[in-house]
């Protein structure tokens, strides 16, 4: 068999984190009963007109700057014309001739090898509606709630050569977009979707093979499998002496196979032209400078700062900054309780463990940094002990409870009355002569048993250090 090389380019659609749709004042909130986030404008009613949401331009610029793009300072919207029920105007307002950003790049690293993935362009456009297939009646129901939600489409150059590179590129892209706050990039809600353009060619050839496109992939795992599957399918075809057909294919992740989408009977001739309803956008130098100045601190800078400012290890700083959400919680909690290392520990150990248990993404963290800081303060003040703190944290993690109120309500405070504690210890000592004898015989470990008994008697509400101290005093009297 000949040796092949896979050539992959991505078109990533990313729903922006605006409150309202791109051309009307409807909410972008996810979910909702069908057609309840819809007005005459986004339903494409005759006579309605679009008015551009300024925040969409701000977010697109922010993404363009972060992805090292040239900004098109005079840009326009174009209409892309085609018929489909999820597109109520029968044209999508998008950008073809003058997209807002061009010529950027994203640097990735796979297995220690650094590589730059080119960004061909970023353009702004509106999302389409949702088609719900009713199997029972064999019909389709159209819901326009998502219709008009703003998107940026990030079109890469065909610079990727493997599924690994694609995944690393996507993860990097997601991290950048989340850091910028331009999108929540939740793949399961469709706010980050990728179309994969893939072709294979004999290694060493500089001519591109015929490519296929797989649309709307929305999980990293599915993307990796789809790439492997499509690569193998194309290589098999070429090995059999057949040729690859340029077409759009759908990846069925359950069957681990792709199939050609029935080619639409009309030609793909979108008849783009400038949308007469929307005046052009002019981005002044001053505006662009303002966007640049307002860019948030990105991961690399944050990571370095954590090492320098908080004395964290590079490893810890890297993990904490993997998601913007985690980093934000870290900084806010550290600022309140002034114990960055302790905060870091709670995030690195307990939080990471719970995320794994609940199969959650760091972006989904719900607890407030104030509550984590308060928990650390309670522990530090000796109000609760560490095992109790870990139990309370589970509640903070799951329900964002106020740890102070929770400890109070559930009577989890350490008994501060040393007299009462001393009484309990004396009883334990009296009830366990063998352990006392062992201790005096030099088996110092016997004290551990006595501490355990005491903690049990105190129902955990004692500080093990204090118990140890009092025990030693009594035994050594």
């Amino acid at each position: 068999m000949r040796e092949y090389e896979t050539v992959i380019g991505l078109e990533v659609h990313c729903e922006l984190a605006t409150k309202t749709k791109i051309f009307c004042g409807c909410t972008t909130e996810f979910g909702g009963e069908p057609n309840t986030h819809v007005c005459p404008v986004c339903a494409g009613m005759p006579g309605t007109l679009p008015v551009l949401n300024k925040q969409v331009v701000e977010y697109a610029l922010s993404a363009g700057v972060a992805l090292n793009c040239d900004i098109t300072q005079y840009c326009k919207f174009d209409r892309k014309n085609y018929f489909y029920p999820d597109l109520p105007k029968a044209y999508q307002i998008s950008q073809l001739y003058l997209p807002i950003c061009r010529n950027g790049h994203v640097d990735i690293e796979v297995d220690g090898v650094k590589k730059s993935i080119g960004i061909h362009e970023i353009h702004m456009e509106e999302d389409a509606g949702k088609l719900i297939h009713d199997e029972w009646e064999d019909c389709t129901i159209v819901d326009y709630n998502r219709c008009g939600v703003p998107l940026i489409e990030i079109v890469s150059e065909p610079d990727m050569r493997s599924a690994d590179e694609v995944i690393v590129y996507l993860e990097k892209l997601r991290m950048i977009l989340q850091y910028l706050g331009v999108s929540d990039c939740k793949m399961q809600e469709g706010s980050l979707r990728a179309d994969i353009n893939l072709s294979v060619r004999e290694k060493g050839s500089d001519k591109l093979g015929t490519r296929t496109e797989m649309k709307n992939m929305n999980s990293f795992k599915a993307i990796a499998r789809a790439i492997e599957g499509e690569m193998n399918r194309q290589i098999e075809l070429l090995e059999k002496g057949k040729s690859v057909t340029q077409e759009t294919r759908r990846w069925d992740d359950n069957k681990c196979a792709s199939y050609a989408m029935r080619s639409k009977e009309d030609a793909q001739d979108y008849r783009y032209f400038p949308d007469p309803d929307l005046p052009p956008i002019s981005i002044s130098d001053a505006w662009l400078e303002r966007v640049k100045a307002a860019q948030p601190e990105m991961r690399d800078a944050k990571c370095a700062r954590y090492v320098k400012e908080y004395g964290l290890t590079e490893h810890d700083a890297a993990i904490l900054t993997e998601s913007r959400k985690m980093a934000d919680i870290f900084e806010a909690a550290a600022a309140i309780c002034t114990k960055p290392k302790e905060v870091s520990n709670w995030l690195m150990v307990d939080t990471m463990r719970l995320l794994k248990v609940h199969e959650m993404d760091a972006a989904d963290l719900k607890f407030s940094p104030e509550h984590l800081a308060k928990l650390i303060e309670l522990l530090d003040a000796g109000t609760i002990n560490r095992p109790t703190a870990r139990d309370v944290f589970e509640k903070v993690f799951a329900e964002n409870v106020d740890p102070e109120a929770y400890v109070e309500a559930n009577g989890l405070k350490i008994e501060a009355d040393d007299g009462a504690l001393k009484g309990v210890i004396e009883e334990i000592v009296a009830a366990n002569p063998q352990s006392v004898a062992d201790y005096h015989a030099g088996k110092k470990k016997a004290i551990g048993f006595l501490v355990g008994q005491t903690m049990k008697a105190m129902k955990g509400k004692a500080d093990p250090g204090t118990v140890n101290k009092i025990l030693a005093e009594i035994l050594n009297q």
Partner: protein
Amino acid sequence: MEITALTALELGKKIKAGEVTVEEAVKAQLEKIKERDGVYNCYVTVMEEEALKRAKEVQKRIDAGELDDSPLAGVPVAIKDNICTKGVLTTCSSKILNNFKPPYDAAVIEKLEAAGAVIIGKVNMDEFAMGSTTETSYFGPTKNPWNTERVPGGSSGGAAAAVAAEEAWYALGSDTGGSIRQPSSFCGVTGLKPTYGSVSRYGLIAYASSLDQIGPIARNVSDCAAVFEAIAGYDVKDSTSVKMDDYHFTEALVDDVKGLRIGIPKEYLGEGLDPEVKEAILAAAKTLEEKGAIVEMFDMDMVDYAIPAYYVIASAEASSNLSRFDGVKYGYRTPDFEDLQDVYKKTRDEGFGMEVKRRMMIGAFVLSSGYYDAYYIKALQVKALIKKGFDEAFAKYDIILGPTAPTTALKMGENLSDPLKMYLGDIYTVSVNLAGLPGISLPCGIDSDGLPIGVQMIGQAFSEKTLIRAAYSLEQTRSYERPACVKGEN
């Protein structure tokens, strides 16, 4: 004199003075519609019940002094059927929207209602405003009140005919390539196509978005100025809407053209122009000169290219704008379908008339892969040159004057079979839309067939006040002529 023969402002005054109630006005108009519309077919929908209900509400507001600043308060108005009226049929005179009741009001409707207008009905038009005769309407042609064998012009033919036949005091039309001015000319009334962006297009069902503009059709310049004052204004819902410095258009109703520089493009008097129309236009120019204006002829080269550029741009935009009529969300759906493609193709084939289909196909063609640069981009370049030509002309002149149309009202059916011939009739009007300028058509004579002749004046962008002053001054030199039918001579 019957109140239906008054101008809108005259009626408004009588209502304010308590000489006529709003209800009386509405009833008088409804009666005329009942009496005459069987012949002229101006209306698609008469809103008898709504208008009578609304008359009472408006009367209360007038009596409470809430509408003292509104000279048109209580005066009924007819609305072209491509302007959305909430809950009231808005059909674009097309089968495909024959059952469409918009869920919202157009911005101009909100403005008119705030000013105390009473909408009395929706008026006929060429289907989707594509045509110059009102013969392409799904609801049958409108007839010219001056001669029922003639067309009223189009596409706002129902609006112009209703005003002429005194079935409406005034109407709102829309003008994409002459659709207010040309029917006004054919029906002997006055129509103003305002500067692009001065009146909100929100709620106007688009034909060609870069050219469409709503404007008034009325019996004289004063009424047009008053209506324009009521409907003009910046609208946050229309991104192409423009804020003007001055909205006091009625202040420009002054009989004074001294020193006004008027240019007549030689090309507007050339081949194809009816001699009687030419004579009337030159006479109007002479009149203005006698009143102190400076009138000159000049060359305007681009005239021949305006129609090709217009049809490319308008058809391209129309093909996109009219794609939403697909049988899914509103309007007509074919009863006979098996799959989605059937719903699309049969609905559209059955729902649209031939002229609309023709323009959608031209539009699809000029935008299609391989032809975009040669046709669409070329047309946008021609548009740029036409705009430049006007800019140069307006460096020398305040007003450009010429005919509105090459002829007076055509015979019914005359142009229906030859679309190209029909398109050529738009020669003097389309370039105004391409350049976004204001234009007005007002009567300036009657030809030997007894049909009205219209003169067109074109102004600089946003200089409606100058345009209104010039038109008003010319209007003062002759009296309004009513068609024979309304004078009871038929």
